[in-house]
């Protein structure tokens, strides 16, 4: 195990840090060596990427907090415009120095203002001789903001002429970020996924106080055996572990088995976990409902999941409209005459369908169709006469708002709108019954 060593920081703090970031020691020591000592200039921009919940945010936060490095931590999803983002960074900077929260709130619209205000803030907090870290979580959102934001952050050290390092955290690789011109490439650092052994180790660490660590580790082992195939998200796994642990303990609590009786415990929990995978994990039923079920010892069969409620009641003509839309979307135009006209003449059977057309239209997805065609098909599939009343037309619009149809190219209302049918064959079958 590589021990964290760095001359600039006290050994006790490093030891504590090491205990907090299991399985990420090598990354942390790498980061430490990049950061260097407090007063040393660090690399201007660092880009850390890795899959969901591979510990990027957590490692950065614990590292900066335990070593008490001056830093600003901002989530780019939360501060969705550049203005909000920049202001938030400044606010965090100021609030760190003086506890008086009601600092006058300065508007910061452009990056130019930001650089000026940033310099002032650094001076006021007397941070000139320390490296300041700005961590931007979910940095892929920076691409959606103004074009200058990302390059400017990468060159912040140069622009502000002060000791600052920008750390970008993201789930996607740097190649997808790189703007076209004049960009300073950051130092990229990859956080690999946790392996099953890592997950086991991390999850077993926080066992409940009532039970021994070994007992909990055995439980985690079973849990991972079931869920590792579908889910490697640490947060999710921890959540699932907490949800199902009480069921695992049941035999022990009742006195039917002791803590070492793994086989018995496995038999008890395994089907339960499988059920959980089909319901709670997919969010078919919520975790609180799941807990209540566990508590009452009921069968999950009584509680229908979200997907079970597929049935939908529609007005009579809406059903026909939807069916007509489906037909219009998936049948080619030239077959309309054959299908919907009473006297369509002879059907020429000779290789009417070519080979490639037989590869079902369902694989190609819905095609757009004009309103007139929809109505024509509607008139031919409804038995009795349908008056083209305002109600029929308003139903088409309402189907669009319910996202059962979608409008294609809505540039001009008079232009003869075109629609697409967005529902599946199963849905249409259910409606047509």
């Amino acid at each position, binding site marked *: 195990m590589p021990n964290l060593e760095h001359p600039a920081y006290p050994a006790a703090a490093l030891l504590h840090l090491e205990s907090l970031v299991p399985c990420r020691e090598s990354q942390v020591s790498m980061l430490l060596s990049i950061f260097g000592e407090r007063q040393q200039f660090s690399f201007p921009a660092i880009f850390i990427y890795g899959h969901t919940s591979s510990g990027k945010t957590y490692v950065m936060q614990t590292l900066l907090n335990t070593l008490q490095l001056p830093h600003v931590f901002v989530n780019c999803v939360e501060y969705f415009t550049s203005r909000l983002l920049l202001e938030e960074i400044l606010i965090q900077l100021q609030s760190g120095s003086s506890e008086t929260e009601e600092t006058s709130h300065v508007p910061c619209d452009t990056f130019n203002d930001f650089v000026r205000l940033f310099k002032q803030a650094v001076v006021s907090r007397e941070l000139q001789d320390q490296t300041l870290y700005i961590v931007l979580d979910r940095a892929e959102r920076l691409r959606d903001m103004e074009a200058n934001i990302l390059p400017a952050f990468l060159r912040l050290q140069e622009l502000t002429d002060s000791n600052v390092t920008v750390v970008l955290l993201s789930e996607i690789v740097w190649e997808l970020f790189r703007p076209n011109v004049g960009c300073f490439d950051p130092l990229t650092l990859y956080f690999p996924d946790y392996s099953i052994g890592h997950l086991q180790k991390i999850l077993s660490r926080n066992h409940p106080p009532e039970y021994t660590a070994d007992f909990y580790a055995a439980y985690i082992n079973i849990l991972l055996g079931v869920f590792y195939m579908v889910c490697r998200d640490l947060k999710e796994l921890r959540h699932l572990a907490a*949800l199902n642990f009480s069921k695992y303990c049941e035999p022990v609590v009742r006195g039917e088995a002791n803590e070492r009786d793994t086989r018995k415990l496995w038999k008890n929990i395994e089907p339960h976990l499988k059920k959980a995978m089909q319901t709670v994990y997919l969010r078919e039923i919520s975790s609180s409902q799941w807990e209540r079920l566990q508590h009452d010892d009921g069968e999950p069969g009584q509680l229908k999941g979200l997907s079970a409620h597929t049935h939908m009641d529609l007005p009579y003509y809406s059903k026909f409209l939807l069916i007509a839309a489906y037909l219009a979307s998936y049948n080619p135009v030239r077959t309309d005459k054959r299908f919907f006209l009473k006297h369509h003449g002879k059907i020429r059977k000779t290789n009417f369908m070519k080979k490639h057309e037989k590869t079902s239209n369902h694989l190609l997805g819905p095609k757009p169709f004009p309103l007139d065609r929809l109505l024509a098909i509607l008139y031919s599939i409804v038995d009795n006469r349908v008056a083209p009343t305002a*109600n029929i037309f308003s139903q088409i619009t309402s189907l669009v708002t319910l996202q059962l149809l979608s409008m294609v190219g809505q540039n001009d209302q008079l232009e003869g709108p075109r629609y697409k049918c967005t529902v599946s064959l199963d849905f249409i079958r259910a409606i047509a019954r």
Partner: protein
Amino acid sequence: GCFVFKPSVKKRRLSQRIAHDFSNRNDNSEDAELRFFTCQSLWNQIKLETEKVQEDLNKQLLDNLLSFLSRSHSEFQEKTSEWTCQMKFREIPTAALILGVNVPDHDSTFRSLSDLLQNNITPYIASLEAKDCPGIKNLMQKLMGQLMNCYIDVDSLEDEDYVQVSQNRIRCSMSSLIKWYKTATKKTDCEIPSQKRTSSSKYWQSPPVVVIFKDMESFTTKVLQDFIVISSQHIHELPLVLIFGIATSPMIIHRLLPHSVSSLLCIELFQSLSCKEHLSTVIDKLLLSDQFPFKLGEKVLQVLINIFLYHDFSVQNFIKGFQLCILEHFYSQPLSILCCQLVDLKKRVNSLSYDQCENIRRLPSFRRYVEKQESEKQIALLTTDNFLKEETQKLLEDLHVYHYNYVAVLRCLHVFTSSLPKYPLGKQIRDLHCACLENQVWETEEYESSLQLARMLNKSELVTMLQQCVEILLSSSGKEFDKTVEKLKEFLTQFQNLEEAFQERDVSVSSQKELQKKTDLYHLQKTLLELKESRRSKKLTKFEMLRFEVVDYIDSLVRKYLVPADHRTLHEILYFNTATVLRGHLNAAPRTALHTALNNPHWYLKNEALKCDEGSISNKAPDICIVYKLHLECGRLINLVDWLEAFSTVVMAAEAPNADTASSDQVDDTIHARFIRAVSELELLGFIKPSKQKTDHVARLTWGGC
């Protein structure tokens, strides 16, 4: 409508003026005023009733929601120290509310929901609509605006500085929202010891913030995802609860949100009553009650129900349609002044004017009635007003009584028909009601077949039905049913006696009956054979005799009480039956109307000169009509030059039949201008559009107005 959003209620015109409008059409103004007030009071009563019905229907749903909301954050507040709570990922409690496809109807549900929440759980409620939130920024702005305003409302504008802070100056980010929440809750905490104990103490220490997404389907995926991700990061500081209003099916949640986002939510499902059941209840409470003197005729009811079932599924619209019926009835029928409660009837009948009496005499149903009377009475009815008034009062009272009895017997009949296989007379009571109103129900084939089926019911079913009928008749207010109830009770005791006397035989009979209910061919044959045998051997059992008797008795009740309303004298006063007016108002056909107007201008302009036979084109018609008719004869692309030629020929036809050929080459400038104007009018109406495929051509956008 399905789903057309009605504009919010406009300012009502002054009632005086409407009353004046009522009287404009008729001469006797004091009557009109009275009629107007009768109409208004009736509508107010009905409105109250419908509101009550809706409240009752939503009660279950709202109670469930309420308990969910109160549970959602209390769990976390109580046991934060426990191990599981620390380990568990903190999800945002979310209620998915399935409300049926008609989105505009949801408004009332949400309104009552937020009222209820405001009174019981939390003052912090924001409801968002998709059209206000195209981006996350707008969503946050809207959310914060609503939340901070509500704070001001609750504290009755105490702190002036909050009012002055305009929406734009607040940084619309989650952190400022959290800051606001902290100060708001702190403030209420401080206030509790002081004067505001009563108002604040009904909330807890930190009431949840409820965000309602009214129309989940219309929100863009990105906005929802961002909002959920952001708020899940702050769930520890801001106890948020989301409510999704879903019109289609809960699958939409999975379609809108990827797993990484939906795993941040703790979703529970709540389903409201289906709108069809809702309608049944409304019909039951409004139409099949004797509370209101006003009734709907068969055709009108059919129109309303059809609009509901075929087009919009909107109970709100059904009630609006009902309101329109009331208005139309009181507006168009001068005798509707008599459409009032029985208590007022006598006074009103006595104060009828001479004109009104003449109106009564002109009613078709009354004329039929007169013809049936003896000659002396006929003369008296036609000449003496006072006698007429007495007779009218009697007849109207009869009509009211008829309605009481009608409803009670209808319910009894429904008890029978609703349990028959395949429902020959309809499953819902409204179908039966329509059938009975339409014509004499006992003459229809469906009635025959349902009686046949009723004769095959088994005993236990029959007994429970009879018991239900007794209950219905006992609860109805009509006094005529004492005898009927006695008779039914007698039947019941007879069944009881049968059971005691012939227990063994009874077993075989009932099992045989059960066999009959099965429909597959083999069993049917078998039962038929058995039946034949049993007939041959012992003719009819006592049970069967009794069963025939019961069914015959029910039949006699039906024949006596379920006479269609239009067979009754003076039904025009209480029953509204002009369906065409209603259809014109509620189920408009703009395209057809446009076609009629352009194709046959006489229909709307009522100008004799415009009258012409089908097919020919009159040159007296407005230019646009001529152009329209000519364009009907063309294909998809129309040559403008040809069109102009044809137009000028038609227009010139009358003016200069003998014009020389040389001048006809050159089209007159005025005609040219008229043509251009007419064509651009057609373009404005959306019949044609300029085409780029061919020069000097326009494309048709219709096939010919359907």
